[in-house]
């Protein structure tokens, strides 16, 4: 047996073993991005949702985190915050939550700031070290305004989070251009671009070689022709009978499918490769036309005008747009689905696709190099980035970040270009927009109420007087509602309006019922959502929320809206 033991191989490192389950999602590059980030949490109120968010970032190994929180640990914290213990009573909440979070992962550096937010934010460059900022309600509008301006100027993503009773909300302020190349499209719902309607000579040659003498082929060969070759063969036949046109509409495709199905030999169990061909007809016989989102990308100003300091993304996008103008298709992604075939044939087919993808990529790369020269770019764009872009071109996503609402006392809430579509959505039965409005009203109440006359911590509705506060918040909320309808210039039917009004009234009531309390479950849920979005933004993978998410824990529903 001793001779049977194989020589030792380089197994996974300790880190790879610990992070195995997440590396299978975002890979080594995503992990590296996470480890290079520094998250700031500006904490307030009961202070749970932010800490729960950090928990889900410390575990997968974010580089650094800092908690700013001037609160002192009270008895009430122990009933809702998992990262505090009895012996911390009377100490700084920032310090103790930070220490218990650090226990979760020795690879993560945690820091804390106990000075009040007003003083902290007043120091020059106070926000400079952070790559992403989380801020939780309640917070004074002056502070939120400063943070929002910092997000706009420094291009740092900013999250604003509420968790109150059974409800929660968060909005994300992303940089004005936030492109994602690696969007991880779902392989089960997205169709792969295999170019059946636009084959290139090498692919056609392969198909002809594999289908030569189809009718007289022996059974084993016949049953192992890759379905791509089968479909290309039958397309040629179809075109001969239809003035050179492939099947275009549903009816023709069904007829074509019939033609392929009939050509299968009648054997017990059928022929798997023919089954695969038949199944692929409706999905794969489409013009590889880019989505409107991708075509829209080509018309964005940053894409049209490439400058010396343009981000690499836009230079590559411009080069890909040129490729599309010239060829009418995007660069080939180069992957082939698995199919019944002999190993050798499949590998040959795979290589044909890969070679074509490399050729397309080389053409795009040449354009990139040309653009670099004409714009006198200083550092060359990495070839690897061009390759990734080409591979994912069909699924690239651009998010246009913008500031979220900062409710100022006595000022009208403005909805701008989103007013019309949002006002129209109010009457939808599942709309959670009224809940968002209730949160805005909550913020206006906070902006105008203090815990004591000397201007201490902001006071939340329902802390002491439920009925009075409910009335106040409802009054503010109804005004925001009517202002939105007026701004959007889309009056609602009387019946719809009264339904929306009732809903809004109920949301306000339930919100004030909590008296600013966080429920651990709702904060844990929201902390899960927020941490997931933080990870997507830091790793620049998957597609983040654009730009506001609302959770109704009474009915267990979420909604994403653009405000």
């Amino acid at each position, binding site marked *: 047996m001793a001779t049977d033991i194989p020589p030792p*191989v*380089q197994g996974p490192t300790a880190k790879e073993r610990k992070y195995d*389950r997440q590396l299978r999602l975002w890979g080594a590059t995503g992990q590296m991005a996470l480890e290079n980030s520094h998250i700031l949490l500006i904490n307030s109120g009961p202070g749970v949702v932010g800490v729960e968010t950090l928990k889900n970032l410390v575990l997968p190994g974010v580089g650094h985190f800092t908690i700013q929180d001037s609160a002192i640990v009270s008895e009430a914290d122990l*009933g809702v915050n998992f990262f505090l213990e009895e012996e911390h009573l009377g100490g700084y909440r920032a310090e103790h939550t930070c220490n218990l979070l650090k226990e979760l992962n020795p690879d993560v550096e945690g820091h804390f700031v106990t000075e009040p937010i007003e003083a902290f934010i007043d120091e020059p460059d106070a926000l400079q070290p952070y790559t992403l900022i989380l801020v939780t309600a309640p917070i004074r509008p002056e502070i939120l305004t400063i943070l929002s301006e910092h997000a706009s100027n420094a291009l740092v993503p900013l999250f604003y989070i509420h968790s109150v009773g059974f409800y929660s909300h968060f909005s994300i302020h992303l940089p004005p251009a936030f492109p994602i190349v690696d969007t991880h499209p779902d392989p089960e719902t997205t169709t792969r671009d295999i170019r059946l309607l636009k084959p290139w000579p090498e692919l056609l040659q392969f198909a002809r070689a594999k289908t030569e003498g189809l009718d007289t082929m022996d059974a084993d060969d016949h049953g192992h022709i890759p379905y791509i070759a089968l479909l290309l063969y039958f397309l040629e036949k179809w075109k001969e009978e239809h003035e050179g046109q492939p099947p275009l509409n549903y009816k023709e495709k069904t007829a074509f499918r019939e033609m392929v199905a009939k050509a299968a030999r009648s054997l017990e169990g059928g022929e798997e490769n023919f089954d695969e061909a038949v199944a692929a007809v409706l999905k794969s016989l489409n013009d590889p036309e880019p989505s409107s989102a991708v075509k829209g990308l080509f018309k964005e100003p940053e894409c049209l005008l490439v400058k010396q300091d343009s981000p690499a993304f836009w230079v590559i996008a411009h080069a890909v747009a040129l490729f599309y103008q010239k060829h009418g298709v995007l660069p080939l992604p180069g992957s082939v689905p698995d199919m019944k075939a002999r*190993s050798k044939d499949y590998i040959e087919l795979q290589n044909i696709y890969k070679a074509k993808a490399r050729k397309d990529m080389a053409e795009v790369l040449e354009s990139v190099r040309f653009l670099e020269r004409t714009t006198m770019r200083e550092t060359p764009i990495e070839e690897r980035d061009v390759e990734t872009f080409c591979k994912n071109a069909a699924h690239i996503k651009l998010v246009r970040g913008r500031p979220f609402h900062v409710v100022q006392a006595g000022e009208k809430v403005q909805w701008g270009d989103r007013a019309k579509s949002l006002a129209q959505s109010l009457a939808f039965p599942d709309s959670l927009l009224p809940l968002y409005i209730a949160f805005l009203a909550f913020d206006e109440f906070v902006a105008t109420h203090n815990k004591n006359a000397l201007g201490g911590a902001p006071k939340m509705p329902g802390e002491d007087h439920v009925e009075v506060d409910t009335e106040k918040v409802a009054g503010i909320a109804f005004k925001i509602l009517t202002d939105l309808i007026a701004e959007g210039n889309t009056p609602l039917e009387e019946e719809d309006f009264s339904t929306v009004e009732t809903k809004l009234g109920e949301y306000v009531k339930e919100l004030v019922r909590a008296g600013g309390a966080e429920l651990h*479950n709702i904060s844990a849920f929201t902390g899960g959502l927020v*941490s997931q979005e933080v990870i997507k933004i830091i790793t620049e993978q998957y597609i983040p929320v654009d730009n506001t998410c609302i959770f109704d824990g009474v009915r*267990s529903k979420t909604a*994403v809206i653009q405000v």
Partner: protein
Amino acid sequence: MAEATSGAGVSESRARWKYLDNILHRPGPFTDEEWTPGEPQIETLSRAKILVIGAGGLGCEILKNLALSGFKDIHVIDMDTIDVSNLNRQFLFRHADVGKYKAEVAARFVEKRVKGVKITPYCGKIQDKDEEYYMQFALIVCGLDSIEARRWINATVVGMVDMQNPDSMKPLVDGGTEGLKGQARVIFPTMTSCIECQLDMHAPRAAVPLCTLATIPRQPQHCIEWAHIIAWEEERKDITLDSDDPEHITWLYQKALKRAQEFNIPGVTYSMTQGVVKNIIPAIASTNAIIAASCCNEVFKILTNTNPFLGYPGTDNYMMYTGDESIYTYTFEHMRKPDCPVCSEENLARPLQVDANSTLQEFLDGLAERPESQLKKPSIRSEEKSLYYQFPPDLEQQTRPNLMKKLSELLSDGEEVAITDPAFPLQFKYKLVFKKG
């Protein structure tokens, strides 16, 4: 603070529940008119005995959430020990805990952190326990990664329902995650759609045919499966494959790599080998946090009636979650299946079209892949006779020849068959209709 420590007994102990008490003491716009706020709800929270099944990614979160929802008497079952790859999300465990029982470590940790909660661990299988054990709980929450365990507990709680005894109906709250996706659902046994009714929502992945592995591999995964299923059996059949043994994985990896090189197939890695052999599902803290919290939010609402909950008959009972493209949830009412082999009263036979020329073996193999059955060790009998039994050995031997016979030789068109599987305390009935033509 001074008030909290010097106050009367009750207010002293409630100081830490200040936030929760806002909800427990105040009615809301959606609470029932009959609902009494305050004491009765606090009483319920301290008395209700809750069972948590699973102390892994979801289980750790569930235990924390229940303790901070005010529950005082929690039990937890898990048979597993802690592995280093759990540490990226199972936050009650530290590096020094690797190798210890999950249920034990998790229970001690939460008890230490949240004063006043009692957590009773059981390190073993759910199948070790009987109805009497399950009867003591007010509600059961599952955070499992196995469909089989879910089906077992589901069939058990449905079987426990005694119409004369309302206490025998144990609500089942179930969470599941995979990567950035997941679901949370509530089952009121015999009143709402059960896990067996919903089985087709979790269709198994089709297995790669053996002949592909043996003769025409095309993907790196095919080479790994070959090493796993064929090469190991040929060369090391005296050693039981342990997917946690690095030497075993290394052996499979090298075998697979060599085979891949023979066929010019790129892409076999150690990590992929591990993933295929152990059937690893990606898992992260954030998705677990979302699904576990959703489950516990429903538990809290069900037991305190502080708001409407999922699973009330005739309303939504299922929340589906997807996080890879923005955030999307779909909350809906999954309807009961009138022919559900677990919760339907009549246990009607499901009609199933079969090829009369296929063998009994082929039919039984198909049951493993059918989304609504997913049976791995089925035994089958017709109205007349035993067709194939896995146990006991002499009956197995006696019925084995039937496996090669055609269905038409064993059954008449439209005949009913009953199928059992040792993994589940239930019987599946099918009416086998022969395909025409």
